[in-house]
């Protein structure tokens, strides 16, 4: 399987996102083992050094933990941590990009909020 990588984000971060997504959607549950570096590298055809770096991000953030000689496992509070981190990114990056586009179009804050409410209803 090959996935198309977003050129605007370093691949190791995308490796972390892929694993985070799989934790959020229940593919990997608490205290379950995630894919090994070799499996991940082969599945997505990414250099193992890049995969190690991506998993390293998740270890530093306490989203996965290492069991010596066994592999990487999902932390108890992984979901909460991922959501917190991603909410911040949603706020600071995605909304900022959205607003910069809205500025080009001359949309007011009220107009934007109404659009969001409309979409939420549908």
């Amino acid at each position, binding site marked *: 399987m*090959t996935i198309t990588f977003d050129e605007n984000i370093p691949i190791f971060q995308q490796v972390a996102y892929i694993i985070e997504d799989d934790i959020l959607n229940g593919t990997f549950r608490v205290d379950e083992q995630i894919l090994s570096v070799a499996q991940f*590298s082969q599945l997505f*055809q*990414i*250099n*193992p050094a*890049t995969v190690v770096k991506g998993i390293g991000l998740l270890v530093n953030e306490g989203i996965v933990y290492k069991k010596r000689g066994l592999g990487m496992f999902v932390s108890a509070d992984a979901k909460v941590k991922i959501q917190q981190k991603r909410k911040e990114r949603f706020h600071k990056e995605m909304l900022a*990009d959205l607003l910069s586009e809205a500025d080009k179009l001359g949309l007011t804050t009220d107009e934007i909020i109404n659009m969001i409410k409309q979409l939420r209803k549908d």
Partner: protein
Amino acid sequence: MSIALACDNITKSYGATTALRNLSLQLEEGAIYGLLGRNGAGKTTLLNTIAGGIGADSGTIEVYGRKLSKREQPNACCYVRAEFSHFGGARVIEVLQIAAAVYPHWDWDYARELLKLFLIDPGQKIRQLSSGTRSLIGNIIGLASRAPLTLYDEPVLGLDVLMRERFYKALMEDYANHPRTILLSTHLIDEIAPIVEKICILEAGSLLLQENMEQIRMSAYLIRGNSEAVASFTSGKRVIYQEAYGRGMLAAIYEKLDDQKTRFAKEQGLSIETLSLQKLFLYLIEGGL
């Protein structure tokens, strides 16, 4: 990290043509390198010189810290030439038997597995094979040799998309299980971007750029917008290519930008996007840095 290969100041000329010009290059042990360059940039000459197929006019080559004599074929090295074409009259299995005798770490089980993966009949003669299948024979030798230093010259030349994907997958899997140093030349630049850890770009026989892939992804940008805004943003930065259109300007820069700088550019109404490796390569060659 220790150095698997060190080329120092290599020059090689063919008559009036200089194929390699004072080229120095070091490869760290256990990493995969992509070797990029236009036709005639010197990629094959470099690989063949390292493998001892041709002797350099001057300069030295060290493999795992040992200096090679001229045209010495280093034991630790497996060189896979583009479109394997030796022993045309031999059968595939016979060619693999020769390789098995040459490479001390040869793995027969793995070689047989690869024949199945690449759908190759071991009884066929080399000259009956298509060019893509001949490339695959070379790749089987490169993989199953498990040589500490493996050089591939255009390993996906002539391969269809299915076989290219199978080769990349096998390369990744076997590299993860048996780490080694790999140098791989290709024109399909964006396909190898996620696979390689580092990139070497050759141009006119010299090394134009050697860099970590992740570093490149964080440093190569295309800026577009109003000429003045582009000029003021790129001022003092390393601009590798620019082109004006009407009141607009397109500029490729090679410089690490943090979030703050990116945000600032967007506030100035500039569009800013990361360059793919292929685009970076193109602009480097076009712009001449």
